[in-house]
């Protein structure tokens, strides 16, 4: 297990490097670079100075290596300094956003909690809805409940979140007036009042994302349960007179959860991508909204960094899913 973990970690490094190169080159070689933003009337020597100030006059491989160094060395050092009050990173060049002229990472750090509260709650809600639906659908296969669940899952797969989101806004915010249409990022939870306000403004984005996730996870849960229901050990458990509850919720559920847990882990990075839409629709000021702002503003360092963070999330959670699968299922042996 340990060797497998180490091998997978080592394999993840070249993958990440390759991805970082792709992201860097795609964004860097695009026509919308800062050089094309400078008016042609600017004299060439001033132009040279501007480019130098932006740090884009070096050849591309040097800039790539510098960016890697900033991403993996300078920024973590800065984080270390901020936490422990040291100053190891003093004088080192950080990744600077073109838009705000300040380092990229503190901006992301400010945005991240917004994303995590909304997305994290949404995923949790989605899982909590999905598991009972999947379990009961499988237990009563082809029943009315199961068919309703199938329909719900199919709709959840097919209706894009931006449409469910707009529908929710129209129904719950405009017609019924239960929830605010826009998320208020500046709201601070200090007492019961503000806590309720926070709950109300989170309700819609959480429901939209939660339902979309619940659809897929409930399907996996159902098929995994069905696979286990027909196994011999289930018949044995019933034959020796175990209550039905224990058979289903202890024996079958435990074994069926193994693949579902990996699916849940695999789904985490994709919801960050999906959150871009929800954040924009509801005005949640998270990293998804930051990415869209950066793209609109041609803020290349910000775009590169955010896209690479998304990629790291995907690779890391793939790795976690693999490891969890190996740990939970003793039949899987990697070495």
């Amino acid at each position: 297990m340990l060797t497998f973990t180490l091998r997978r970690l080592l394999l993840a490094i070249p993958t990440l490097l390759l991805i970082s190169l792709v992201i860097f080159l795609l964004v860097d070689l695009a026509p919308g670079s800062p050089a094309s933003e400078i008016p042609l009337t600017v004299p060439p020597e001033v132009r040279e100075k501007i480019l130098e100030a932006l740090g884009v006059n070096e050849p591309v491989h040097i800039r790539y290596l510098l960016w890697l160094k900033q991403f993996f060395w300078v920024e973590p050092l800065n984080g270390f300094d901020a936490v422990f009050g040291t100053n190891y990173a003093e004088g080192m060049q950080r990744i600077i956003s073109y838009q705000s002229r300040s380092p990229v990472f503190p901006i992301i750090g400010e945005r991240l909690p917004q994303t995590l509260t909304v997305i994290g709650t949404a995923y949790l809600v989605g899982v909590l809805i999905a598991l009972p639906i999947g379990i009961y659908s499988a237990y009563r296969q082809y029943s009315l409940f199961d068919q309703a669940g199938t329909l719900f899952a199919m709709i959840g797969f097919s209706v894009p979140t931006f449409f469910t989101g707009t529908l929710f806004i129209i129904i719950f915010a405009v017609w019924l007036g239960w929830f605010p249409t826009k998320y208020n990022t500046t709201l601070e939870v200090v007492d019961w009042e503000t806590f309720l306000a926070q709950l109300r403004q989170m309700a819609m984005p959480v429901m939209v994302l939660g339902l979309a996730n619940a659809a897929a996870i409930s399907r996996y849960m159902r098929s995994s349960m069905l696979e286990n229901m027909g196994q011999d050990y289930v018949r044995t458990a019933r034959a020796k007179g175990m209550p039905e509850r224990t058979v289903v919720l202890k024996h079958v559920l435990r074994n069926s959860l193994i693949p579902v847990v990996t699916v849940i882990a695999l789904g985490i990075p994709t919801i960050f991508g999906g959150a871009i839409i929800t954040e924009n629709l509801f005005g949640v000021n998270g990293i998804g909204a930051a990415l869209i702002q950066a793209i609109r503003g041609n803020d290349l360092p910000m775009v590169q960094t955010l896209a690479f963070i998304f990629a790291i999330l995907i690779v890391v959670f793939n790795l976690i899913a693999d490891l969890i699968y190996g740990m939970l299922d003793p039949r899987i042996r990697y070495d």
Partner: protein
Amino acid sequence: MTDTNTDLRPPETLRSAVWAQFRKHKGAMFGLVVLGLLVVFSVLGPLVWQPEKLSVAEALRSKNLPPSFAHPMGTDHLGRDQMQRMMLAGRVSLAVGFVAMVIAVVLGTLIGVLAGYFRRLDGALMRLTDMFLALPLIPLLLVMVMLFRDRVAGYIGPEMGAFLLIVSAIGITSWMQAARIVRGEVLALKEREYVLASRSIGATPKRVILRHILPNVISPVMVAATLCVAEAIITESVLSFLGLGFPPDFPTWGRLLFEGLDYMESYPARVIFPGLAISLTVLSVNYIGDGLRDALDPRIRGR
């Protein structure tokens, strides 16, 4: 066991067997009908439904009309007939879905066959597939469209440019599933006796692949292709929804929804119709894919 074949009906062809199984799937038939209606609505609709052209003064008076007999879906903020725009948008949305699917499937099949058939290419191509699977697709698509839109538009015009850019961007970021499925199938198929027989009489790899392997991977590819259409339509509407898709004069369903957002509170119909169109298309395509999977699976068919 020599003459059990007393049944005089003509032997069942594969195609009719698949169709018979497909028809049993209620969802799939529903999907086929709905998708058919949507295609007719967008492809033939604009030929039949041609609201009269309005002068600027008339258009100003007829803006933001609710649904009526003359305008079944109302008019938009510039007095344009919403139903005609829905039809034209449907053409683009469906075209994006199908063209992107074709690109993704061709690319995926090519890579899958190469990886499955030629062992030397397998490792490299599968690492490439893994890498593409780990790319954050929506952010990258947004970046690609945003950064390259003006450049491409300069060469072939804003509309065609946006179409080609979006279609190829979606196509080259969604071939991975098809490639994995095809590779798996090819790995199993190439060990079969008939492939060995074909190779032993001196068939070139090209002939073996084209004559013996490709026809046998068609069914899983078809299922992957339907899912790809659904995915591509959603991706395009996400791009349009974020305002980074097609130019404003070139409506797609996602774009109409995006434009409707500003008027959502007063005229919800303007958001609901395009949203419904996207959802129904994707839903029916997914159901068709479901039905195809059942119909093409010999273990389920004929039971």
